[in-house]
């Protein structure tokens, strides 16, 4: 008879402890275990303002191209043949040749910058050293904006897709459309530096603009970080991964793909007082057992 009573007390303690612990993890499980497919989620595009997409209203007629050579820089090694003077609003130049210029801010890049944004290190022909040919060609259409954050509570900015899977040595054409009215970026890091200065391929689209660029990935199985580097945009949802081949392991904190690495501590549905109730009960039960049997 006594034995039944004892075990009842113990079971009660254990049950309370389990209940308390599960109450704590409840809020986390809700967000972490439910993987939402961004493609399947229903997004309302009706409220989007497409009229603002061609929002640049700038007069470039006053642009002083004559003064370009008067600035105190070494232009001797500059490759003027690659400059496209016919398109004044998107002057392209080869920055990789500027030996005498201090590029500490932007390194040596192949970059085009205009009202609509920027394309950096676009490469549609040079193969990585380890690739004999292009294995496959992809055309990725990525959209960015606050509406893509809606399926993921706790994020503010988002992309239409947060994971891209491609074959090694493949050629990737990215069309990046920004549905917001602020800048967004689609930036890949840690590509080979001999081919992509600073290891970056980078598209930046102004509010309402679309930018297109191409890059060729090397042959190794690797997972690359893709993000928007406007302050706090990656942290608040604009983080994705590019999986080449088998990849090299998932990156954390990617909306819809992987769990947040350092989640905040969220309020729980159960008060933590119950943890102490359980603790107290188990102490009392131990004392009770000790007095009975010792």
């Amino acid at each position, binding site marked *: 008879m006594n034995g039944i009573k004892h075990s009842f007390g113990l079971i009660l303690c254990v049950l309370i402890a389990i209940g308390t612990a599960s109450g704590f993890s409840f809020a986390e499980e809700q967000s972490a275990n439910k993987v939402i497919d961004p493609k399947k989620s229903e997004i309302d595009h009706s409220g989007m303002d497409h009229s603002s997409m061609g929002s640049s209203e*700038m007069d470039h007629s006053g642009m002083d191209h004559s*003064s370009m050579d008067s600035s105190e820089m070494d232009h001797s090694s500059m490759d003027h043949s690659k400059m496209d003077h016919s398109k004044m609003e998107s002057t392209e130049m080869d920055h990789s040749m500027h030996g005498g210029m201090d590029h500490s801010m932007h390194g040596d890049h192949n970059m085009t*910058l205009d009202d609509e944004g920027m394309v950096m290190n676009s490469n549609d022909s040079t193969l990585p050293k380890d690739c004999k040919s292009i294995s496959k060609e992809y055309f990725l259409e990525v959209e960015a904006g606050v509406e893509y954050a809606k399926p993921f509570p706790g994020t503010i900015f988002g992309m239409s897709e947060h994971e891209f899977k491609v074959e090694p040595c493949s050629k990737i054409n990215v069309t990046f459309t920004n549905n917001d009215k*602020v*800048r967004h970026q689609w930036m890949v890091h840690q590509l080979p530096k001999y081919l992509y200065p600073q290891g970056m391929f980078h598209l930046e689209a102004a509010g309402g603009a679309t930018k297109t660029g191409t890059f060729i990935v090397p042959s190794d199985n690797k997972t690359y970080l893709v993000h928007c580097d406007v302050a706090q945009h990656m*942290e608040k949802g604009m983080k994705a991964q590019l999986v080449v081949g088998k990849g090299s392991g998932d990156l954390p*904190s990617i909306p819809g793909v992987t769990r947040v690495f350092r989640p905040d501590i969220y309020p729980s549905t159960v008060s933590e007082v119950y943890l102490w109730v359980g603790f107290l009960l188990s102490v009392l039960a131990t004392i009770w057992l000790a007095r009975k049997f010792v």
Partner: protein
Amino acid sequence: MKKLVLIVLSLLAFSAFFLLLPSQYYPEPLRLKLYEWFGAQSFTQLPAPIETIVPDLIENPCPPDHQGWRPAQVIDGVSVGESKVCKPDNPYAVAASVKGTNNVSHMTLMNSKFTPDSVVKGKDLDGDGDPDEIHIRLEVIELNGASPDRTDPVTAYDIAAGVQPGFWVFAPKTFGMSTENFESTYANNMLRAPSPAIRVEQGDKVKITLENTHYLPHTIHFHGVDHPFLDENGEGNDGVPQVSEVPIMPGDQRTYEFQPRQPGSMMYHCHVQPHTHILMGLLGMFVIEENRPNNWVQSINIGAGHVRSPSVAIKEDYAEEYDLQYQAIDKQLNEIVGKYNDPRLIAKEMNRNYDITDATSDYYMLNGKSFPYTIPESIIVVEPDEKYKLRVTNASDHLVSLHMHGHKVKLTHYDGVEHNPVAQIQRDVVSISAAQRVDMELNTTNDGLNNYGEGIWVMHDHDEKGVTTDGMHPGGGITAIVYESFLNDNGLPKKQGVDWQKFFTPEFFQREIPVWVDFDVDKLFAEVEPTETSIWKYIFMGILLGLSLVFLLAVFRSDY
């Protein structure tokens, strides 16, 4: 009988414990009695001083000017004045701010980091040789924010060595990464505190577009700037959510329009939850320069400070012009953005849990930096017999009592309005209330009134909290008026007195370095060596104390 034994044992144990205590813990009457009975004790050395070694600096606080940013130069036809400080403003950004990002060469734009539409200067409406249509685009940037992937702050920004409070700032629209490069978590030099000083000319048709790149809603209120309450389309133009317009949500933008008829030193700031958003750093100076022919003004002054391309009107009366913004921030407020990543939790903590009426400021800054980081960039470099225009703004929530050594400044304008010239007063302590702007004329004529001669004359808030960083002095918004004869070629003052190396180390602000360490050669005020004690002695003392208690309790349990 047994009880008596137990009591005696208990007392013995307690006495033994007591005797093992250092005599400092004995009650005063007992110590006097002991002295009476046994006389003075024999000499023992007090704890020895220990040497504190000031760590080597990882970075040169005054780096050489590899980029050639310091000398006076002409970029795209814009004359950019010499900057004599260690860390000058980027002259390409200055040139692009003067000429307009739509009018400069591609090279200048690339070197400035502005986007082509950041500062657009359009038509010359009055035909006086300068553009009168100005369209500036601003973003909102978080510095020292949280990350779900790491514990250190991201888009990092130091106000002093190792001091990284969270900030929100307005920043000009720029392209590329927010950090210096992929390896660095530090913000690029366009993203910093304070929000940039904006300059337009009186009568300009001004458009300011706020592109809300931040994850919370914001607006802009143009404080003191002549602007209509509603714009031409009937949209709110005053930035006040309660009466004018719904705040700009993340990813959205709004354009404010006005044509200021009066010149003066004004401000712009966010008016959403102003008791937190302003103090988080969403406040900058807005200067309207007097209308003059051929007056190309420097529309953006990154980090405020020296105006490298002053307006025509300023050049008529002054040798140089300086924008000075005093700021203060409360640790409990600014650490919220580093503590949480989920914007819902940040909003709740800021809007509902944080109570500003219980707040005290911890970090005091001048132009986004605290001493000694003010010195490489925010000193006022002067020559004798000249006049300098100082536009001073108080963006903090306390009264700044600005005191300058060696000078008495003349207060020419309050809140952008000229003080009656015959009644203008001279002071060496200037009270600047919260949100107030005071224009000062710094006259370097050595006449015993305006100036007492050349030197390195410090200038600081005389509310003494303002010269500390989280209570450590020297810190806060201390800077100096430095005469050129007292300036080294590298831009640092030829100072005398104590060594500064310690001030540039994080350890100093972590309170690990005795403040007089460099000149206290005999270690009179050094760190004290801890008293050597054995662990066993402490355990033994603990056992004695416990025994005395056990014996005492046993008295009540004994049957006799």
